[in-house]
């Protein structure tokens, strides 16, 4: 097949002494000279941008691991995590895996427990007041509110769309300083997103939507790493793209993602042009983004890669198509033969029944449980196909169903790292924390805690371990991450992490006062359990919580207005964050 490619030649890049170190992509090229066309200039620019990203990425990796919190060194962000893309995690499938409910509309009671379950699965760090709000609105209205669209958030700063300069005549010092600046802006971009997540729904007692959970879902799905993309501009553009389509059309999003600048840089789209096929993006598109393994052959990967040729980003924020660099030959993709473009490949992918099943399995794992039942999945997939790949009808059907409220799956999701860092702050009503020094230099305080906790929980937003996203489920929890979760989450109650002043502290009394009856110690324990656990605690655990709150005093002596009440609520919250129950939702 490869022999059918027409070979075009590109003018060699005139070597710049300064760029020579990192412009390897073109400087070592065997391509011969040709006329000075605009597109060849563009190609040079595209390759420059790519090479700049690669050089910068290598330099940045050295800087990123520096200690931030209390002088301790965090996990290096490049530690990779492998996933189980088939989800064939063959552990003992006990009785609890038997499915006894389906997508029939739920007609049971929608009490506090159901409201809590709904929000814990759909919102990153729901607040108790929001659970109360949802309960009073009822299931239908609560789900409609979750599906509401909102205005796009304002960019973190002008730099989010700042032109990436041509650095060909810059000194190494100038380049280094720009690379450093970009690295800091990526950190700021993370915190900008963290604050958007925390402000979701407009703050205390607002009505949260699914937008950030779904933006996170797509980020995990089309997993793109800032450490390689380098440009905060590109990561910002992609993040807004995912947010814009968060509750939108899956097919349209795939149609955008293959030309998304960050994706072009991340999966070697910049290196994929006629005569120089790079199959990286095409392979992952089929394996991880749309169809899943075993649905295509190696030849289909090549055919898709050839069809996606011609797209480049020259500025890191927009993409352009150059027909001269498109492979105009006949490609055979999934038995369709023709001179295909990228959009054709997307069309063919979405003609396959498996595509809807594949994404529905992932949505199921994101919102319901790790072990999807294939009958339920095909049912959901038919909804997705019927809506021409609009995601919202699928989500609505899920959240209104008997299966979603099945007692069996309550508390069956292992909480991810973002839930235990950003989500924790949100659930404790801790807002506007990232807004230090503009978009925070990460040197101290809440921004440092947030960055560090995401990092040591293995869930640093904008830096997935690889293109497969975070492996999720039980891999969130191991000796190291569990230990770090307990230590960092309890530190928010103390406002102190081993002598390091966090410059923030949860207000234990205020949190307790949001519950239904904080003067009743049993009710306080139950409301906290509702808020922080995936399912009701056993009687033993509940008793331990009560003991922790009362500290030897009698239940009738308890009042939230007692002199020692704050310390006692703090002890209770810290116990909660140390219990295994806290790690599931």
């Amino acid at each position, binding site marked *: 097949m490869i022999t059918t490619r027409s070979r075009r030649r590109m003018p060699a890049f005139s070597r710049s002494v300064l760029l020579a170190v990192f412009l390897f992509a073109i400087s070592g090229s065997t391509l011969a000279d040709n006329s000075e066309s605009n597109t060849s200039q563009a190609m040079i620019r595209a390759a420059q941008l790519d090479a700049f990203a690669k050089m910068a990425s290598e330099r940045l990796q050295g800087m990123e691991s520096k200690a931030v919190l209390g002088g301790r060194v965090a996990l290096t962000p*490049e530690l990779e995590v492998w996933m*189980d893309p088939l989800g064939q995690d063959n552990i003992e499938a006990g009785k609890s895996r038997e499915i006894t409910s389906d997508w029939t509309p739920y007609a049971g009671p929608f009490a506090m427990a159901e409201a809590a379950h709904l929000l814990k699965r759909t919102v990153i760090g729901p607040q108790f007041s929001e659970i109360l709000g949802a309960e009073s609105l009822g299931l239908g209205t609560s789900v409609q509110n979750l599906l509401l669209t909102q205005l796009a958030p304002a960019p973190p700063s002008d730099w989010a769309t700042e032109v990436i300069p041509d650095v060909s005549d810059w000194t190494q010092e100038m380049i280094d300083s720009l690379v450093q600046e970009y690295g800091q802006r990526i950190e700021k971009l993370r915190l900008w997103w963290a604050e958007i997540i925390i402000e979701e729904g407009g703050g205390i007692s607002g009505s949260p939507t699914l937008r950030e959970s779904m933006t996170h879902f797509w980020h995990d799905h089309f997993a793109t790493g800032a450490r390689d993309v380098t440009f905060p501009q590109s990561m910002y553009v992609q993040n807004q793209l995912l947010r814009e389509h968060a509750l939108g059309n899956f097919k349209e999003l795939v149609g955008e993602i293959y030309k998304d600048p960050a994706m072009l840089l991340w999966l070697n789209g910049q290196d994929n042009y006629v005569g120089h096929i790079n199959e990286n993006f095409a392979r992952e598109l089929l394996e991880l983004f749309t169809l899943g393994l075993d649905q295509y052959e190696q030849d289909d990967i090549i055919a898709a890669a050839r069809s996606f040729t011609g797209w480049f980003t020259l500025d890191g924020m927009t993409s352009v198509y150059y027909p001269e660099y498109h492979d105009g030959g006949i490609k055979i993709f999934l038995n369709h033969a023709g001179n295909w473009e990228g959009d054709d490949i997307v069309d063919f992918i979405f003609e396959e029944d498996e595509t809807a099943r594949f994404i529905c399995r992932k949505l199921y794992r994101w919102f319901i449980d790790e072990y999807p039942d294939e009958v339920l999945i095909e049912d959901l997939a038919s909804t997705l196909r019927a809506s021409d790949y609009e995601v919202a009808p699928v989500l609505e059907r899920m959240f209104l169903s008997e299966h979603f409220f099945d007692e069996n799956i309550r508390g069956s*999701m292992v909480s991810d790292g973002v839930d235990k860092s950003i989500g924790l702050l949100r659930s404790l009503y801790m807002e506007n924390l990232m807004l230090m020094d503009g978009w925070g230099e990460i040197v101290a305080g809440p921004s440092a805690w947030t960055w560090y906790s995401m990092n040591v929980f293995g869930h640093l937003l904008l830096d997935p371990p*690889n293109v497969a996203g975070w492996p999720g489920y039980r*891999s969130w929890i*191991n000796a190291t991450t569990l230990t770090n979760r307990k230590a960092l989450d309890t530190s928010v109650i103390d406002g102190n992490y081993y002598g390091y002043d966090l410059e923030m502290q949860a207000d234990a009394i205020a949190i307790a006062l949001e519950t239904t009856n904080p003067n009743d110690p049993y009710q306080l324990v139950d409301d906290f359990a509702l808020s922080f656990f995936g399912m009701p605690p056993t009687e033993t655990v509940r008793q331990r919580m009560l003991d922790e709150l009362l500290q030897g005093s009698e239940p009738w002596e308890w009042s939230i207005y007692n002199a020692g009440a704050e310390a006692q609520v703090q002890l209770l919250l810290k116990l909660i964050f140390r219990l295994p129950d806290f790690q599931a939702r």
Partner: protein
Amino acid sequence: MNRREFFDKTMKLVAGGLILPSMSRRGQAQNWFPAMPSGRLRRLRDLDVLDGKILVVVNLSGGNDGLNTVVPVNDSLYYGARDNIAIAAEDAVLLNSDTGLHPNLAPLESLYTGGRMAIVRGVSYPQPNLSHFRSTDIWFSGSSSNDVVGTGWLARYIEEAFPNFPDELPFAPYGLQQGIAHEIPLKGERGNIGVVVDNPDTFFQLVNQNYTGEWNDELPETRGGEELAYLREVDQATFMYADSISQAADAGVNSLSYPQTTLGVQLEIVARLISGALDTPLYLTAEFGFDTHVNQLGLHANLMSSLGDSVAAFFLDLDNQGLSDRVVLATVSEFGRRVNENGGFGTDHGTAAPLFVMGAGINGGLYGTNPNLAELDTNGNMLMQHDYRSVYSTLLQGHFRASESVSNQVLMGAYEPLDFMDIQTGASPLPTSNRMLRAYPNPVSLSQSGPVLIQFELARASRVEVQVFDVRGRKISAMGGQSYPAGSHRMVWEAKGMPAGMYLARIKTGTWEASEKLLVLP
């Protein structure tokens, strides 16, 4: 000690407070180490299981390019396929007239010439899968291309070797994985055989201050109950192993500095834990970034540097401390890379590739041939010479002395062992007399070595008392009255924290006694 006894004991320590008694002596939170049990004696796992061996697996994650790692320096097809990214013959570290190592693997040359390094070429499996994720699963689980197996081959072996696991849990974890990593390798049929720990220095205090105790209450038979049971299991295992890991980290040393790469830092910790006599047989480490689709030369050179420098440092460190006689290190990678370079000065996903096995008991040399680049599969990839499970069966039978039937069971099929290790399966022959084998290191330098290992053999099962005396004849430590089966045994004496000087280690049974002088240097 079984699980029950362990928790009875430890719960007394944590009851009523989150801080262990030993922690209160530590004072400031700045000190992350647990109390060092100076002068204490501790019994290690008997040598009849796993033969006391240690296996370190280095995963070259992303698919290492075999052709540029072990270079066919006389193959014109190789140079023809790689105009821009081939390793020139004159740059390679020549092993023979046809074969050279990547220049940045030069630090491994002495291991090779010393006969301690085997290079097994053309390793893959039938119907190779070119997906990173699927192929990594296959390598870690030890399965065939089309079988999906959710447990790790080494975890299954541990379960074979320790039939009472997990009802009886060891003091130290069976496996220790670094980094946030793949879940399959440590997962057995009956539970996780080990833990993932990044920083043993901070581990202990964080774990102990935040442990809420063991829960025995019944959980609902729902998916939620199932997950909570899992979370509790991890919580308890973490608490259990924190003690042994941090003790070993505290007691152990590194005799030299390591390259501060991802792999270098991990192997530095592994060596320190081995030096500290952590009784863990399996260590899983990794270096990342081998998926060199573009601009491969520089990227791969850095990775080869990390591999060569880190592994060389690791073995030199173990040699310096007299610890290398039990340790084998093996590299794995989910696949090699395509013969032809691509348009981006890189290589795409491939199939068969060489791997390295080095350390104790290795018959060094080259196994298999350089790949035949004239005969490739339909995707332009190299053909397999050795099934990766033959490498595994060699490690099981040659290194751990597993029986052939256990090996077959673990690997779900019969895979003929290769010649890079001698196969002597079954238990070592029983000793004919009682014997104090050795105490090492001796002299022990407190600044340069870990605890002292005391090794002895018994001809028949006996009650044994081990004692350590100082130069004035005062008993420093004693471990008495335990019944030991016939065979080889190991004890550890924590010398760190003891005043420098002469000590005497004595082993007694009812009818026999042996002793050895130990010199402790500052």
